[in-house]
């Protein structure tokens, strides 16, 4: 089979990579649910799940089996097609975004180059923004199709919140694009090569920390994580947009959140913290070793940001809805616009504007 793949002229590698990426995304998301419970427990001086397998590492499997075994209910009054479509879209868009992220430097084995990126479209950043905004539909359609007041209100909250924060996110990405000068994610990663060059840090975070801050806050809002988890505010909305969902359809919504969190963390580490680049990577002669460490570094950064997401969730209480909107429209958007203008001016006066 392997020789067949190697010898046939058709390039199978991207397709294999898609499957690998699919499995990794689901695996990381599954273990993110376990990590979430462990982190929550440890931050609250508890032990967390530790009964299923050593340290409870089989807990995600137990949770998954439980989700599948639950009775699947589609309400009579719901719009059945859309009711099923909702979680499907949420999951689909969550998994789509991983395609443009470079997970490591190119791996060269026997003269053949294996790219660790499914596709390097020249508008990768736009693709990311586009797919993320489709994600709103999963929640909106699901909440509307349930034919339930709470679900509808939850969906409304979710969609207005995500749309509001997408604006600030978009403007902060425009700022990023301005000083990177490219829309290709692979190129953004390459520009941050190493850690230190020409007397300054190469990572984008050090070039403009404010962009990172705005992007990070917006990423929290986009993934519906605390302190922006109003769509599923139990005290006010029962379960929010997934009130009527049960079994694996509910599982898909919850799972999509974790896949989103994984992808957001990957995007943050790619855009601002050098992606697969690490300090002193040029001192290592073995190209293969650099690639492997690069992949490891990329995942380490991603896991760190997943941890930060959880850390924030178990620290900060939820915003009130008007506070959420105030922060989005009155603080983050003006701030990102000012940041955009100042970045433009600095680039103009230092002669970096082409």
């Amino acid at each position: 089979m392997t020789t067949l793949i190697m010898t046939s002229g058709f390039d199978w590698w991207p397709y294999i990579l898609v499957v690998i990426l699919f499995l990794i995304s689901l695996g990381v998301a599954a273990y993110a649910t376990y990590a979430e419970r462990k982190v929550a427990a440890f931050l609250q001086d508890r032990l967390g799940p530790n009964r299923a397998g050593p340290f409870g590492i089989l807990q995600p499997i137990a949770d998954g089996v439980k989700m599948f075994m639950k009775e699947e209910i589609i309400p009579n009054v719901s719009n059945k097609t859309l009711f099923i479509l909702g979680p499907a879209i949420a999951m689909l868009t969550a998994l789509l975004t991983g395609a443009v992220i470079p997970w490591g430097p190119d791996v060269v084995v026997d003269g053949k180059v294996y790219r660790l990126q499914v596709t390097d479209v020249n508008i990768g950043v736009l693709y990311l923004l586009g797919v993320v905004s489709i994600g709103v539909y999963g929640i909106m359609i699901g909440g509307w199709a349930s034919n339930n007041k709470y679900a509808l209100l939850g969906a409304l909250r979710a969609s207005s919140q995500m749309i509001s924060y997408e604006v600030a996110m978009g403007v902060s990405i425009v700022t990023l694009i301005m000083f990177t000068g490219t829309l290709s994610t692979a190129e953004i990663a390459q520009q941050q090569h190493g850690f230190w060059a020409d007397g300054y840090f190469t990572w984008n975070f050090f070039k403009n920390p404010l962009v990172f801050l705005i992007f990070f806050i917006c990423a929290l809002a986009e993934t519906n994580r605390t302190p922006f988890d109003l769509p599923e505010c139990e005290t006010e909305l029962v379960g929010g947009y997934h009130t009527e969902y049960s079994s694996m359809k509910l599982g898909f919504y919850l799972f999509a959140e974790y896949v989103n969190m994984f992808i957001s963390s990957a995007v943050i580490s790619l855009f601002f913290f050098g992606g697969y680049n690490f300090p002193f990577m040029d001192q290592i002669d073995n190209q293969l070793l650099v690639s492997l460490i690069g992949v490891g570094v990329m995942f380490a950064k991603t896991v760190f940001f997943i941890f930060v997401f959880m850390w924030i969730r178990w620290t900060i209480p939820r915003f009130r809805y008007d506070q959420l909107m105030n922060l989005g429209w009155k603080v983050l958007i003006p701030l990102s616009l000012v940041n955009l203008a100042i970045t433009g001016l600095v680039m103009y006066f230092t002669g970096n504007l082409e």
Partner: protein
Amino acid sequence: MQSLTNRSKQVSKKEMTFMEKLYLPAILGGMRITLSHLFKKKVTVSYPEQKRPISEVYRGQHVLKRDESGAERCTACGLCSVACPAEAITMTAAERKKGEEGLYREEKYAAVYEINMLRCIFCGLCEEACPKEAIFLTDRIVPTEFERGDFVYGKDKLVEPMDKNLRVDVSVRQTKGVLEFKQHPQYAHNKLWDPNKAIKSKKSAH
């Protein structure tokens, strides 16, 4: 209005400073605190492997004692069920037949003795009321069941085994102090039972 304590504070509605409005310092401070808890000692007790120490006179599942020769001490007088505030105890008395002297200490005994563990509040009043030193609460914990009916404990679960090695040790609850306390007029019924004899029998049983 005069305040009851001097601890009341006037609510201040001062404008927040710029740093306070940023929220970020406060959020980072909060995150520092939660992070420090990551390394703190965990308070969880992993129950079946690890148990919290309980008092020697913990009031758990009841036991119906036998005397040193193995005869049931209970004489079905019903004082425990009268004393029970939760009305958890019921019993049916029966007369001892010839040849059953080894099984029952007194001429009357409890043919049926039931405690509803769902009603029981583990107050220990049955133990105090008993004139025959027959019922005691122990440090055993009542296990969970799947059916309601299974919580009604009959004699099969309450009476201690005949085998002397398997007897339930209640000596810590039967100290001299407890016996002296039972001399109180309130426990006049206990006078039928000689405390010195009781101590002896306890010592010989264990």
